[in-house]
């Protein structure tokens, strides 16, 4: 089924072909997990998002309109799921801070960082720098670098104008370049 498009597979699934869904799962599971991982910086939560996303996709077959945008549509589901988690976490932390209970709340373990995927020093530096980017830059660069999406597709997933996407990506690349080039930045880089 390798040469069948995502939309065709999803339409076959909607008509009852469960194997077509298995192919979609195998084709996209790593992208979904990796994007969630980059957004949430937590492997366990990313695995939960992967499960949630594919269940949502499995349940939405009847309402999906095939327009060649399956991947961007699915990544949008991943993003929304991640944003909901990030927002709940923010609310939870705010509530804890408000009730001054933070000192008795067990601190969350440091999220397993992207170090797991380091293969050499440069990759390690870039991965650490990506995980330290502001949220919107991080999600844009993840789609740009890992998924090799075009600006237009990224704009669809992130629901923002193409020019905003370009700005986010260039800012992210500039920050990442600085992390690869720290001595010169210290000598007066104008950023």
């Amino acid at each position, binding site marked *: 089924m390798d040469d069948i498009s995502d939309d065709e597979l999803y339409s076959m699934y909607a008509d009852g072909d469960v194997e077509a869904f298995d192919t979609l799962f195998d084709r996209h599971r*790593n*992208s979904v997990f990796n994007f969630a991982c980059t957004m949430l910086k937590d492997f366990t939560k990313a695995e939960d998002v*992967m499960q949630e996303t594919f269940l949502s996709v499995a349940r939405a077959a009847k309402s999906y309109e095939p327009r060649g945008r399956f991947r961007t549509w699915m990544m949008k589901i991943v993003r929304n799921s991640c944003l909901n988690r990030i927002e709940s976490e923010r609310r939870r932390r705010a509530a804890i801070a408000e009730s001054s209970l933070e000192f008795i709340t067990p601190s969350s373990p440091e999220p397993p960082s992207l170090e797991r995927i380091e293969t050499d020093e440069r990759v390690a530096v870039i991965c650490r720098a990506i995980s330290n980017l502001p949220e919107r830059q991080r999600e844009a660069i993840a789609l740009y670098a890992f998924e*090799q999406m075009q600006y237009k597709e990224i704009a669809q997933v992130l629901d923002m104008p193409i020019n905003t996407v370009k700005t986010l990506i260039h*800012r992210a*690349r*500039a920050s990442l370049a*600085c992390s690869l080039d720290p001595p010169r930045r210290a000598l007066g880089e*104008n950023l």
Partner: protein
Amino acid sequence: MSCNLTYEELAEFAAGDVDESRAHVIERHVVECEACRHRLGVLSQLDSALRQLPRSEPSAAALLKVRRILSAELRTSRTPEIMTLDDVARFLRIDDDALGEIVEDLPAFEIGGEIRVRRTRLIEWVEQRELAYMKATTQSGVSRILSRVLAQGTS
């Protein structure tokens, strides 16, 4: 042009996202400015590394769990809400003989002389049987059932 180009401007230039006249200005500047040539070199290294970053992959345990949940979801969602006895046998993965043994216990109803089962009721019924089985069955009980099944398989 003095060297006040930011990394961000160079990043836009390197990606081809500046207009033509601005691109000419930056090109001319870069010829003169060693610092900017160096930074363009770093951006080039970065861009090539970005295209080769290894993705994080889910653990085998997580994949197994998601596959199991999806499989249950797909099987359930593909089954009609109102089921015939054939649908029930397929859903429960049993043959006609086994269906015959349980048919009187099923949460079924009759319509136009035909037997039908509502999927949601069937799932509840299966869950009740699971619970009852877990309560009633001791380890030795499981062994007895296994022995019986194995004996049937070899006869």
